[in-house]
């Protein structure tokens, strides 16, 4: 227990110190984690060999990340990117593997080892690249999308690669006691793990295996579609926050387990499940539940990469390692740049694509340890290769900085217009979709505004979805859910929940963390309106005011008043009321007991009296507000005009 606590303390401490500093220096969180890892590992020596085991555990963060990526990606979008996925991704993996393989052969490596090296280096780091793109807000750019297509293809391509590598085994390496690290074969790749017999498909004929695989994929897709939603609805009904989180984790881990059992990539399986659930009302809730786990695990993963660098080997062969790293990255970069041109990425985007994907990735580690296990690559060489992978990953944040500092500024003004166009669309996040929020949402949707609707009543969401209103389950007063619903990029935030206190807290929270978002809120009464105002709301209306005014107007009409006069009276009343609200706000304090605020009471009485005057007197404000402009000129004004001769000007 003590050992565990100490380790956790060391890792968390390193992360908490290094990451904010790195972020503040503009290096990005990934580099921060890597540096933290180097500090506690090779430099200070606080952690040692256990980092490798931790790394396999932490790789589960990648699985979670792909689940989240899937959640963001509706099936339709996935279908739309099929050309990029297969074309761009396929060509990248194919050409890079070939070129690096040839280069390795030229350096005097046997062809089978050369091919394995090609495969290992053809992959890029999904973890670093997606995390960095996200952090820098580049996910939605052309370059970001293209990068994502390639990474997704690579993640899928790992599966056949794992099948291919054992065929490259060198007889002279086999049986030389290299299988000691059988468990090194990470959970991530889902490679066959014959030693432990965890595979369900071992010994099945080819067609049987194919059937099992198809069955598993079908189970994930159909189960995700038909089983998950009722299950989540049932759990949401219990209103236990942590049980929902538990079930979200259960879902991800369950699918990962199933995929491992049938020798498929767990990352691929959870990605599929994510895509299937992207349309569901639980999308944002799932996102906000899994997100922190993913973040921490990925952070841990990066730390272990840093901690695992073998400085002994590095310094012994520094020139060689550095040369190989730069060589690999240059080769990958050339292929990427050529593909970017071939697929007509815009200038700037092509550089993001090239610089972003030039490193080797975490899957490279997986393939590498698997290659050692299967006697494909000799261990001395593998140490150098592992260093090359790690070093290239370490250089990646620097490449993103180059992109930001050198390439982005040169893209010039052409892109500003595009950004505006997206901005103009701007989404509206609506919290609460009861009787009140529904009307707001209907008006906005009817005006072609895209809205994201949140409510904590799963039953309400279900009903709304049936009549075609897109809405999501979740408690809108939770910061992480707001984040998942995309509050940062929203233009407006509408608060229509009926919990008064939470509405005020929500205004405070959003005002503090997302000052650029305009907040509109439903106020219960005057006191609530003032509380919202104090919290920084941009616009708030008392929920009953307009309705009551409308009914009052109908009452006047029913009494025989002329409808247009009633309209003018109503408007005069509204303006007078709004003015009073402003005046009284100056005297108002938070004390809910109105009777103790004498100044406010006096003002309220005054205002009440002036209202009566305004509404009954035939002159003064009433005149100004209801008759002004339609007042006929005084009788006999014609004589005045005849005396003058304005036309003579």
């Amino acid at each position, binding site marked *: 227990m003590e050992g565990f606590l100490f380790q956790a303390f060391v890792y968390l401490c390193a992360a908490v110190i290094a990451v904010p500093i790195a972020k503040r220096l503009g290096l990005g969180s990934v580099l921060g984690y890597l540096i933290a890892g180097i500090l506690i590992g090779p430099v200070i020596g606080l952690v040692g060999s256990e980092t490798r085991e931790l790394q396999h555990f932490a790789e589960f963060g990648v699985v979670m990340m792909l689940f989240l990526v899937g959640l963001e990606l509706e099936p339709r979008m996935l279908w739309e990117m099929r050309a990029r996925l297969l074309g761009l991704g396929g060509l990248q993996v194919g050409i890079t593997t070939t070129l690096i393989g040839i280069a390795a052969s030229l350096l005097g490596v046997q062809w089978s080892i050369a091919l394995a090296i090609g495969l290992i280096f053809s992959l890029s780091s999904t973890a670093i690249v997606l995390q960095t793109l996200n952090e820098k807000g580049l996910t939605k750019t052309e370059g970001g999308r293209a990068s994502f297509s390639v990474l997704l293809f690579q993640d899928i391509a790992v599966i056949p690669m794992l099948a291919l590598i054992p065929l490259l085994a060198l007889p002279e390496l086999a049986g030389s006691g290299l299988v000691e690290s059988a468990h090194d074969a990470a959970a991530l790749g889902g490679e066959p793990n014959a030693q432990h017999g965890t595979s369900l498909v071992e010994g099945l004929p080819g067609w049987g295996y194919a059937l099992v695989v198809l069955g598993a994929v079908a189970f994930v897709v159909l189960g995700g579609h038909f089983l998950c939603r009722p299950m989540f609805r049932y759990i949401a009904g219990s209103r236990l926050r942590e049980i929902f989180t538990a079930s979200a984790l259960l879902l991800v881990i369950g699918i990962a387990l199933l995929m491992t059992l049938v020798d498929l990539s767990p990352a691929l399986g959870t990605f599929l499940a994510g895509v299937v659930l992207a349309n569901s009302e639980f999308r944002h809730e799932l996102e906000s539940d899994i997100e922190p786990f993913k973040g921490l695990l990925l952070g841990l993963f990066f730390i272990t990469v840093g901690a695992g660098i073998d400085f002994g080997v590095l310094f012994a062969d520094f020139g060689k390692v550095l040369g190989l790293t730069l060589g690999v990255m240059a080769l990958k970069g050339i292929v990427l740049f050529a593909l970017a041109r071939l697929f007509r990425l815009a200038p700037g985007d092509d550089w993001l694509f090239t610089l972003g994907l030039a490193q080797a990735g975490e899957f490279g580690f997986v393939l590498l340890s698997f290659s050692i296990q299967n006697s494909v690559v000799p261990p001395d060489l593998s140490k150098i290769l592992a260093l090359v992978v790690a070093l290239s990953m370490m250089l990646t944040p620097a490449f993103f900085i180059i992109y930001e500092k050198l390439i982005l500024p040169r893209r010039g003004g052409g892109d500003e217009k595009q950004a505006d166009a997206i901005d103009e669309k701007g989404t509206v996040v609506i919290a609460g979709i009861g009787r009140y929020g529904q009307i707001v949402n209907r008006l906005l949707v009817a005006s072609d505004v895209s809205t994201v609707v949140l409510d904590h009543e799963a039953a309400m969401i279900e009903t709304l979805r049936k009549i075609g209103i897109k809405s999501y389950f979740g408690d809108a007063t939770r910061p992480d859910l707001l984040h998942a619903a995309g509050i940062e990029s929203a233009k407006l935030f509408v608060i229509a929940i009926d919990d008064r206190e939470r509405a005020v807290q929500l205004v405070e929270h959003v005002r503090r963390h997302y000052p650029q978002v*305009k907040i509109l809120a439903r106020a219960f009464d005057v006191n609530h309106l003032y509380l919202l105002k104090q919290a920084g709301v*941009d616009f708030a209306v008392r929920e009953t005011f307009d309705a009551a005014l409308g009914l009052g107007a109908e009452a006047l009409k029913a009494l025989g008043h002329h409808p247009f006069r009633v309209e003018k009276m109503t408007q005069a009343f509204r303006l007078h009321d709004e003015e009073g609200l402003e005046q009284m706000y100056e005297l108002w304090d938070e004390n809910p007991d109105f009777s103790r605020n004498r100044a406010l009471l006096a003002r309220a009485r005054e205002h009440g009296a002036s209202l009566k005057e305004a509404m009954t007197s035939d002159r003064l404000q009433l005149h*100004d507000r209801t008759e002004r402009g339609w007042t006929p000129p*005084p009788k006999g004004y014609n004589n*005045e005009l005849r005396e003058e001769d304005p036309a003579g000007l």
Partner: protein
Amino acid sequence: MKSRNDLLNTEMPESPASRATFHRKILILFAHPSVERSEAGQPLAQAAARTEGITLVDLYAEYPTFIIDVDREQDRLLAHDVVVFLHPLYWYSTPAILKEWQDLVLEHDFAYGSKGTALHGKIFFSAITAGGTETAYCDKGYNHFSIRQLLHPLEQMAMLCGMVYLPPFALFGARTALEEGRIDAHVADWVQVLRALRDNRLDIEAARELPKLNFKLNSILREG
């Protein structure tokens, strides 16, 4: 009310005419009830908004419920030397909100009457976009009257208020102007006229007699 307008964000940017020192300050009251479908009016309004020394008020944006703030509008009139109605021609007149604006803002003893001298000496004209072709606006055409004749109510309004009336700055055949590529040239003329008025480079006396303000621009513009 103000915050609501900010929120809708439909208000055209008002260039603060008061800050710069020009010979004349120009107030343009723009009235178009469906500005998103406008092909001629909107470019004219935007060009005016971009021109220094000009205040552009989008009346439908500022008073979407027709509840016009009389005091604010009268203050605006007092602060400017030239008043322009910019609008499409609806039934030989202005869109409804400009009529409402006249009814409410041009009060007795403000705009007319023995004490109503607030507008004396200011220049008034309308800038219109009309669907009919120019040839339709004559006694032989289907509109039977010239555009100046049809706008006599506005001319008389200006006269009663003691203002100097100029003929309308008019675009005819406005529904096909975009397809025929006439918009850009018209907008350029418009900006030229506004600048000339602002900088006192427009021959007012010569302009008063023209059938339309953009009849022979060169004859009324002076070098600055």
